């Protein structure tokens, strides 16, 4: 049998009381309530983290790396998402934040924003070298990649065959640091500082390579207090040990539209939020979206600054990023020739293609599936259409689907309007 599907959230059964909030919020209808507990259907979950945001009982925990885990490595590297610059107000400068982060116990901090700028150049190169197909879809958000594999399997070939900046940065860093400090590559621990738990999926179960270049992902929430305290006590002023060469292009990757800001094409579109992403992918699938070169989709509202593991209000975070973009300007200091050389060596490329992983059909046998489809329509007509979720399925249609899929012990009597309540 195939290995169990890895996910980045865990339901704490001692806290979950089986209310319907997460089940209702789930955009892929991956949650059911059984015996008063929320259950995740592994092959339907895309790790978007919507359940994490809405749980009123704090019963859903992200499975990110604990900060103490970094001590397993001789050399500890932090690779913060540029989202980190949005979290401490417009008065905190990138260098100060990076130094405060380093002070938490890292040997070295690398600004992922620089890898974002390299990736912008590489995306441009990719678009010029690959005139078809269109639109090319960004691979940055691991949830979007999973969403396409599951819900839009026919679109996997449109995903850019290039690793996202966090992987590119880690790959480059491990090689460079190992050479510079004469330390074995396996003694270097590289940790992404992340606004979302989904990165854990792409680290633990990478789709496009044998093994991720990252060793883990630490939640911004976890390191937030430590950085905040250090920034507050700034009278001793951090010695500026890390001086980033970052520009507004790299910083901008943390908000929706940031990725396309770095590329030349006018025919680039950015979309954020899970429902709008599903909507635009539906249009791409129907061939409705023509004349678009590049499609940036980020599952969190307003982009990564809207991630479930961020602390700062996302509207303030966005304002901070926009102010930093103005301050740091739109001109990258990255050497385009260097990036082109790396591109030439396939440094950015996937090791292997992304495979479609569609939701299981109603039945593996087509004739049976059609029978079940008809049965489902018949059952649906008898259901009240209130979509209350008390049966344990998110809405009447999904309940009808669960019934024809022969969920064990499930009968139409589960419906409170038709039979006895059994929640």
């Amino acid at each position, binding site marked *: 049998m195939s290995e169990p599907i890895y996910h980045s959230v865990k339901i704490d059964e001692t806290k979950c009381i089986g209310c319907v909030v997460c089940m209702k919020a789930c955009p892929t209808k991956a949650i059911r309530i059984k015996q008063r507990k929320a259950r995740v259907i592994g092959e339907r979950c895309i790790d978007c983290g919507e359940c994490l945001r809405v749980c009123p009982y704090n019963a859903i925990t992200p499975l990110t790396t604990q900060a103490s885990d970094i001590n397993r490595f001789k050399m500890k590297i932090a690779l913060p998402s540029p989202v980190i610059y949005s979290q401490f107000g417009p008065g905190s400068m990138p260098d100060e934040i990076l130094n405060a982060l380093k002070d938490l116990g890292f040997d070295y901090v690398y600004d992922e924003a620089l890898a974002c700028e390299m990736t912008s150049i590489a995306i441009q190169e990719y678009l010029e070298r690959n005139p078809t197909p269109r639109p090319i879809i960004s691979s940055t958000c691991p949830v979007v990649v999973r969403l396409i594999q599951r819900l839009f399997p*026919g679109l996997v070939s449109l995903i850019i065959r290039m690793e996202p900046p966090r992987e590119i940065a880690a790959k480059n860093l491990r090689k460079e640091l190992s050479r510079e400090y004469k330390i074995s590559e396996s003694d270097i621990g590289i940790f992404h500082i992340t606004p979302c738990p989904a990165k854990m999926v792409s680290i633990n179960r990478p789709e496009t390579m044998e093994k991720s270049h990252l060793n883990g992902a630490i939640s911004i929430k976890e390191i937030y207090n430590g950085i905040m305290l250090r920034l507050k006590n700034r009278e001793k002023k951090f010695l500026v040990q890390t001086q980033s060469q970052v520009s507004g292009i790299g910083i901008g990757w943390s908000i929706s539209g940031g990725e396309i800001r770095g590329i030349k094409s006018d025919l680039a579109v950015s979309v954020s939020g899970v429902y709008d992403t599903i909507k635009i992918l539906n249009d791409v699938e*129907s*061939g409705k979206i023509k004349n678009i070169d590049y499609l940036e989709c980020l599952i969190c509202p307003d982009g990564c600054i809207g991630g479930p593991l961020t602390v700062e209000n996302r509207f303030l975070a966005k304002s901070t990023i926009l102010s930093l973009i103005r301050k740091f300007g739109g001109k990258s200091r990255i050497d385009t020739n260097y990036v082109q050389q790396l591109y030439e060596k396939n440094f950015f490329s996937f090791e292997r293609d992304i495979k479609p992983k*569609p939701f299981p059909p109603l*039945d593996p046998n087509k004739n049976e599936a*059609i029978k079940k489809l008809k049965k489902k329509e018949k059952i649906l007509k008898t259901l009240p259409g209130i979509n209350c979720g008390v049966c344990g399925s998110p809405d009447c249609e999904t309940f009808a689907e669960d019934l024809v899929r022969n969920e064990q012990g499930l009968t139409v009597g589960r419906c409170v309007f038709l039979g006895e309540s059994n929640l």
Partner: protein
Amino acid sequence: MEQETILQEEFEIAGGDFVNGGVASCRIKNILKEIGVDANILRRVAIASYEAEMNVVMYAKKGIMKLILTPNKVIIRVDDEGPGIPDIELAMQPGYSTATPEMREMGFGAGMGLPNIKKNADVFNINSTVNKGTNLEITINLNNKNE
């Protein structure tokens, strides 16, 4: 060779209703997903049926889109009541369009509709009577991945 129909669904399309244009092809797509049709075949059906639906929305009074599934084929049949196409050969040429400037403003009328349907179909039949309507039959084989 005629084959037994294992599923047949019908959808009405209203001419001029751009708001709901695309709903029928989207429902067809979702049905085929639930049945487990291969991803690449699904995409071809999605594109061809969307183009066919939008042709009805743009040019006809009304139309019916039928999804017919046999063990080896997906067939999309579209019958509309409308102006018809005087010169099918011309309409099949990429870039040829009779779309109004307003339609073009909305992003339609690139003259790729029929050629795009043909490109995605294994068999494409089109008949039209001027001032009466147009009938399309798009067949996409299930077993041929056409990669």
